[in-house]
């Protein structure tokens, strides 16, 4: 997830800088760092029998959020 800090949150800091300058970049990345950990925590239980190993390394981002969204609506696809 140190890699996520660089690529994902590095990008997020650019976006935050565009919104609120230097202070925005610092505040934005601080919150994003917390969000990253919570997102991993959210997605690991969902994938506990399958890709939990993968999400621990590459998650904490959209992969985690969309696993959660997917898990909510997957039952619709099982045909009851």
């Amino acid at each position, binding site marked *: *997830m*140190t890699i996520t*800090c*660089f*690529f*994902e*949150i*590095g*990008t*997020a*800091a*650019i*976006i*935050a*800088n*565009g*919104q*609120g*300058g*230097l*202070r*925005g*970049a*610092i*505040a*934005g*990345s*601080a*919150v*994003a*760092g*917390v*969000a*990253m*950990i*919570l*997102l991993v*925590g959210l997605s690991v239980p969902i*994938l*506990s*029998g*399958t*890709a939990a*190993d*993968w*999400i*621990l*390394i*590459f998650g904490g*981002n*959209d*992969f985690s959020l*969309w696993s959660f*969204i*997917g*898990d909510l*609506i*997957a039952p619709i*696809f*099982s045909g009851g």
Partner: protein
Amino acid sequence: MQSVMDFIIEVIREPAIFLGLIALTGLLLLRKDFSSIVSGTAKTVIGVVILTQGTNILMNSIAPLTEGFNVMYNIDNPEIEPVLGAETILSEYGTPIGLAMLIAFSINLIVARFTPFKHVFLTGHMLFWFPFIFVAVGIENNLNNTQLIIFASILTSLYIIIAPALLRPFVRKVTGSDDFIIGHPTTILSLIAGMVGKLFGTKGKSSEDIKFPSSTEFLREISITSSIVMFFVYIVVSVIIGFEAATIAFGAEQNLFIYSVMQGILFGAGLTILLLGVRMMLAEIIPAFQGISQKWIPNSVPALDAPILFPYAPNAVLIGFVVSMITSVATIFMTGSWAFSALLSYH
């Protein structure tokens, strides 16, 4: 049939080839002369390869830190072993993942052609990893093979259509243009950071206008600044966990100080290479994509990999990296329970 599909999937998963083909298509549609077509295509491919190699160097310079953090959380080799695991899913469910990827990308093209969602998701490796994760979610929910393909196709197409569109106004604010947008799993983190930045930020001072006195003006050079920053990250982690533990955790074969200097410089070098690759490919793919947006998918823009934004505010990238590392470590400590941190320390 199977081998044709495998071939197409491999093409899309290889960013250099995939974006090269997009550039080639665009340039052909623009009816450019032979020399411009070869040059634009080749420079796109080479730019992407440079970018990828820069990424690899960066990962090598960052990766040893992960072990350092594991020591910090006081955990030895956390074992997370799902019954299936990523490797098994990749080998046993390759066909549903590949099919979902092709179907989702086709839906993206149709949607871009006929609806107001005017972008084409071109981050090829992400086009593969999203159906992968949705197939995993589907397996957890006991979907059968057909249901898996339908589920992963729909979710992947929703993702590649919705996520870049949500981030689009924020990207426009950074680039000042609408030439390209971002198709990358950073979206939720970027949206959060963007909104927090808007709330707490100040309009005036950008991270890129930091003023340095003339004696330290060399810090304006990102290759130097990033090397120094990474050197300090290694030193700080070493001080926290102790030099002996750090030497073992990093697998340092040199003196820890020399090792930290070299990891820092490796980071600066990797970032410099990455930026070079980004500039090279952007200069080619953006004009080439005009062919596609003029002839096939009117007014469409490409959604590209996140590092494409790095040249616009490299200081912000360093700030994001360091600040989020601190707050994420703090979050792990505060959430407290050993089990939770054991899960997360698998960094």
